């Protein structure tokens, strides 16, 4: 047994987190910043933070992740990191020449109280920022929230580039949330089909799903441009997908520049995608083309075709709040039974949303915001399930409990495809459903006695 020391009996812990279902803010800020064209994310702290985030993102995407660091020493930690940051700005523009440096803080620079805005002012005053180049920054203390919070903070910093001209640009701002490059691509495809002109930010498609062609481009073609970000203040509205990932930036644009916003769930599965398309149609004043109706029908078709294998199957799931909310709703819509749901990101509303989505089920779900995978495993030991959904770390629980596992979320370190095949929209719903069915049916084929092993399923 890989997790042999995990007992079935649950005791409350007040100080010890075991097998976390979250990580820290800066990696989210780094991922978001990679969705800006020509951007070099910069980690203002010890070089280990940057190394860890780059390693994790590299292993998840199997792509180069370029990001720099202030490489704090003990001296910088005592006297402040301003000198390191100023030196870094010089070196970054000289050696890498990005369009934008997106700086995020760490627990180290936050604890000593470095003020990035003040450092930027000093850099400007000293002429360290070449003309036409930008520096944006986000405060991402690791001891608050989670990686999701850091993502949201960096996305908000992108929105703060907005420079309204007073003339509307006829576009919708779309904040896709912490989804895969393939998902961002899929959202853009749907927007195109609907004929909605948009600014999608961040946009990691074309950045983290690049080709192998014998050339290394440190700054690939993809990403939202600074020009587009500046124009977000002129947009007719903002559609934010995911309360935890995206709402803050949308609300900031609303409050600051009167760009009205709507916040929806991430469009995973049938119902959330229905709402996404329907709201887009209403906001943009367009009609939904037949192609999209066809895709929806295909998803409904597969649900109906394979319903017998989904019905009342028990599921445990762990991941980030926006993902878990949409996924739980999808599972309920399939007549599956989500039993245990954990997210590591704090927030009371999470438990309320899950309880609302599952209120008609004939049992009480186990749900915990600020939970961990150790707790999830104990819940599974007490009330077994048929399927586990979560990131790569779940494979240890899956193996010990002999459960089929669908890899979903971040990070996925041992399988590929997430950067190429979307899981949002109806097409993405088909893929999620295919993955769930394959996991369940592979297990059925593995376990069926010879006399009831069947050719046709």
């Amino acid at each position, binding site marked *: 047994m*890989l997790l*042999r*020391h995990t*007992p079935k009996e649950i*005791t409350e812990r*007040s*100080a*010890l*987190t*075991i*097998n*976390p279902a979250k*990580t*820290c803010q800066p990696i989210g800020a780094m991922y978001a910043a990679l969705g800006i064209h020509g951007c070099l994310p910069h980690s203002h*702290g*010890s*070089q*280990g*933070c940057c*190394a*860890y985030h780059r*390693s*994790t993102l*590299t292993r998840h995407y199997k*792509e*180069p992740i*370029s990001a*720099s*660091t*202030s*490489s*704090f*020493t003990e*001296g910088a*930690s005592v006297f402040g990191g301003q000198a390191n940051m100023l*030196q*870094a*700005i*010089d*070196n970054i523009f*000289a*050696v*890498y020449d990005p369009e934008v440096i997106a700086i995020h803080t760490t*627990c*180290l620079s936050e*604890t*000593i109280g470095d003020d990035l805005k003040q450092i930027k002012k000093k850099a400007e005053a000293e002429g360290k920022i070449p003309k036409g180049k930008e520096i944006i920054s986000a405060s991402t*203390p*690791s*001891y608050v929230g989670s990686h999701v919070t850091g993502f949201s903070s960096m996305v908000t910093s992108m929105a703060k580039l907005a420079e309204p001209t007073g003339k509307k640009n006829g576009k919708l701002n779309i904040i896709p949330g912490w989804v895969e490059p393939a998902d961002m691509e899929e959202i853009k495809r749907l927007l195109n089909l609907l004929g909605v002109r948009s600014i999608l930010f961040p946009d990691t498609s074309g950045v983290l799903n690049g080709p*192998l*062609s*014998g*050339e*290394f*481009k*440190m700054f690939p073609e993809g990403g939202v441009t600074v020009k587009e970000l500046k124009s977000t203040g002129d947009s007719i509205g903002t559609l934010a997908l995911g309360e935890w990932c995206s709402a803050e930036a949308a609300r900031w644009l609303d409050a600051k520049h009167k760009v009205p916003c709507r916040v929806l769930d991430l469009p995973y599965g049938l119902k959330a995608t229905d709402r996404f398309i329907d709201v887009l149609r209403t906001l943009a004043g367009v009609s939904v083309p037949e192609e999209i109706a066809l895709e929806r029908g295909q998803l409904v078709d597969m649900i109906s075709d394979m319903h017998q294998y989904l019905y009342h199957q028990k599921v445990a799931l762990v991941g980030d709040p926006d993902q878990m909310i949409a996924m739980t709703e999808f599972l309920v819509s399939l007549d599956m039974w989500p039993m245990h749901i954990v997210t590591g990101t704090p927030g009371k509303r999470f438990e309320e949303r899950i309880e609302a989505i599952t209120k008609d089920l004939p049992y009480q779900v186990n749900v915990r915001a600020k939970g961990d995978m*150790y707790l999830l495993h104990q819940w599974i030991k007490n009330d077994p399930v048929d399927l586990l959904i979560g990131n790569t*770390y779940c494979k*240890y629980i899956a193996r010990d409990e002999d459960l089929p596992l669908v890899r979903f979320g971040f990070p996925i370190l041992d399988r590929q495809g997430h950067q190429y095949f979307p899981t949002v929209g109806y097409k993405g719903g088909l893929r999620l459903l295919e993955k769930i069915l394959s996991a369940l049916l592979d297990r059925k084929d593995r376990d069926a006695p010879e006399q009831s092993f069947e050719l046709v399923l």
Partner: protein
Amino acid sequence: MSSTNNTDQPAWEPAKVKAEILKRYPAKVARKRAKQILINEALGNETPEISANIRTTPGIITMRGCTYAGCKGVIMGPTRDIVNLVHGPIGCSFYAWLTRRNQTDAGPDGANFMTYAFSTDMQDSDIIFGGEKKLTTAIQEAYDLFHPKSIAIFATCPVGLIGDDIHTVAKRMKEKFGDCNVYAFSCEGYKGVSQSAGHHIANNQVFRHIVGENDEVKPGRYKINLLGEYNIGGDGFEIDRIFKKCGITNIATFSGNSTYDQFASAHTADLNAVMCHRSINYVADMLETKYGIPWIKVNFIGADATAKSLRKIAQYFGDQALTDTVERVIAEEMPAVLAARSDVRARTEGKTAMLFVGGSRAHHYQELFTELGMKTISAGYEFAHRDDYEGRQVIPTLEVDADSRNIEEIRVEADPTRYQPRKTPEELKALTEAGYKFKHYEGLIPDMEQGSIVIDDLNQYEAERLVELLKPDLFCAGIKEKFSIQKLGVPMKQLHSYDSGGPYAGFLGAINFYHEIDRLVNSRVWSYMKAPWQQHPELSASYVWE
């Protein structure tokens, strides 16, 4: 498009390569980097000096990690029966959770915490009001849940800044429990200039709090410790297999697949064999001073190096029975190695490699490339010190700068009751006169060819330029470097955690490595970089039907 460099003459003069790389830097950075990029002109006994173990330049995309990574990730990570509790915000614990491929055998006692991440998950209130109370409670909760032999506490950056006294908390809890050794590591990420400081902090505490805790005499005739071997991809398992076959007892591995008790018993061994000089040579020194155990440098990367290291161990014990067994084992193991080598070498001969990894691996792995007939044209370490490049003779002359000064050096004296020289002065003299070298490591530079380029703390930009200019057939570094190199159409082998595969140590490991390198440098995929229409655009002008 092939990147193969088949010519014997380098396309670029080393001096021009260096100048080309430095050209892009601001003057101050160029001056600093110039001292860390060395064209190997080793002649006779003259080893040129390189600048190493100095600060990383802010803003330069470095390969290096931090002190915490070196302490918790590298040294303490592979010890299976200690609960490694990270005191800090969640990230540090998360990123060091199963991300190094230290293989582990839970053994008959079944204790294995390798698959767990333990953290105090500090929140802003802990930063403001102090985290000692939360740490105390977390230690208690870990003890109540698991009853481990030992709990280790690791400090992350904010812990040192807010002044949590983790050592006092650890001491109090150790006294309270009575049956669980609790100790702490002040391994904040900002200390030192790289992982190397973390290795030192970890090893010091292991020496101070664990080594010597168990005086029980273990069975075995030829008892050694293997220092600086981390069982990535099962390397340690392969070395242990060979030791067992030779009748050599490995009391403690520091620290691949290790246990608390191995560390506790390390002082009962009769020889310390040092694999990774960088991460642990000072522990070997301390074990000698305190307990009288001599140490030698070994290397089990490369089949020939493995044979040489086994003979070196046998020579130390000076027992014909052991010498005979070692020779028999080498004779048994080598035919399969040589068969694989001659098969693969036909396809690897003359190819070139670059190695930028670790504090020893960039040296050790050159053995395997030599066995494959491949030439290492450029190499360097990520976190080594000058002695790892130039040899131990420079140690007395090393300058202690502001960053190194705060990394503790433990002063050790002979243990009043347990110091016991393993060899008489006469025996040592006889061995030395026969050419046997104790405490000896010549470093990487003397083993590299003239005109090769040695680079300390290589960064992403330099790596890209080197590959573009010198077009090696293979590049070796870490996961962060892997894909920017491969985008250039050059295969990249990760030599920290190997990506996949291994073991590469010992005899079976050498065979694995030959096949892996054959796979990498001869893969068909590198011929797919351009589509047919990109290779011959002139043919795409009109519809032509046969």
